[in-house]
C-alpha cells in the first residue's frame, strides 16, 4: 500500500521560505498569488492489511519522525 504524508508549518508559524517565494512571484507579475506556504511531501510504501492499519502506522511515523509537533502539522492519504 502506498501512503502520502503532507507536512506543513502550523498557521501560526512564520514561513520565511514561503514568504520569499511569494515575493518572487509578485515581482514576476503574478499578482493573483497571495500567501505561499512551503511544506514537505513523503511517499511511503507500507505493509498493512487495511487502510485503517496503514493510517495508524503512518500516523505514528509522522507523529514521531516526519513532523515536529512544535511547529508542524500533517495530513495522511492512503492509496489502496
Amino acid at each position, binding site marked *: 500500500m502506498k501512503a502520502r504524508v503532507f507536512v506543513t508549518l502550523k498557521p501560526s*508559524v*512564520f514561513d*520565511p521560505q514561503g514568504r*520569499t517565494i511569494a515575493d518572487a512571484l509578485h515581482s514576476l507579475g503574478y499578482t493573483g498569488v497571495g500567501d505561499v506556504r512551503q511544506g514537505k511531501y513523503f511517499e511511503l510504501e507500507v505493509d498493512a492489511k487495511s487502510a485503517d492499519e496503514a493510517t495508524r502506522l503512518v500516523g505514528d511515523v509522522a507523529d514521531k519522525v*516526519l513532523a*515536529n509537533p*512544535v*511547529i508542524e502539522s500533517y495530513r495522511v492519504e492512503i492509496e489502496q
Partner: protein
Amino acid sequence: MKFAVVVFPGSNCDHDAYHAAKHVLGQQAEYVWHKETSLRGADVVILPGGFAHGDYLRTGAIARFSPVMAAVAEFAAGGGPVVGICNGFQVLAEAGLLAGALQKNAGLKFLCRTVECTVVTDRSVLTRGLAPGTTLQLPINHFEGNYTCDAATLERLRAQDQIVLRYTENPNGSLDDIAGISNEAGNVVGLMPHPERACEAILGSADGASLLGAFLAAAGARVTAA
C-alpha cells in the same frame, strides 16, 4: 571533571568543544560516538555543533534517535549538566529535552559572524555566577537558529527564568531575541552561539570561556555535593 563530547556523523565542532574542555579549561575530555549507549562516567556532556546526520528531514530530527541520546536523556533527568551548542541545541529541542524548535533564519541567510549576547539569568548551569546583564561577544554560525515556540511556552520560559541568553541585535528572527534557553531545572542548556570557539583572545573573543568556566564550576559543585 570529565567532559563527554558526543559525536554524530556530521558533527563538525566536536574538536572545538574538545579543545575548549581539554586545553582551555584543562579538564579530561572524551569523544563519545553516537552509537554508544553510555556516557562513560562523564560529569558533563556537550552536544557539539555541525550537521548531525546531514540535517536531513529537520535539523536534529534523526540525531535524537541515535542510541547515545537515551543515555543523554537519563543523565539530564538525573540533574547532569548538558549543553547543546548550535546543532546540539537543535538536537536537544527535537529530543524534547528543551522546549520549542529552531527554524530557518528569518532572512534565509546562513549567518557566520560575531554577535553580542546578554546573560539573562544566572540560574542555568552555563551562566551560574555570571551577573545578569553581562554582555558577551560570541560567534554564530547557523542557517537554522530562529527560535520559535507557542505563546504559552514563551510565557513559561519567561516566568520560570529559562531564557539564558538574548541577542542584543536579533540576527535571525528568533522569538523574544532568544539565543539560548534552559530546561526547567536549569541543568540542560541549548544555545546557538559558539562559546567553545571564543575561548582565546587570538580567536577574536575569550568571552566564551566565562560561560564554559561557569559550566565547569556548576558541574564541580554538583560533584562535590554528591
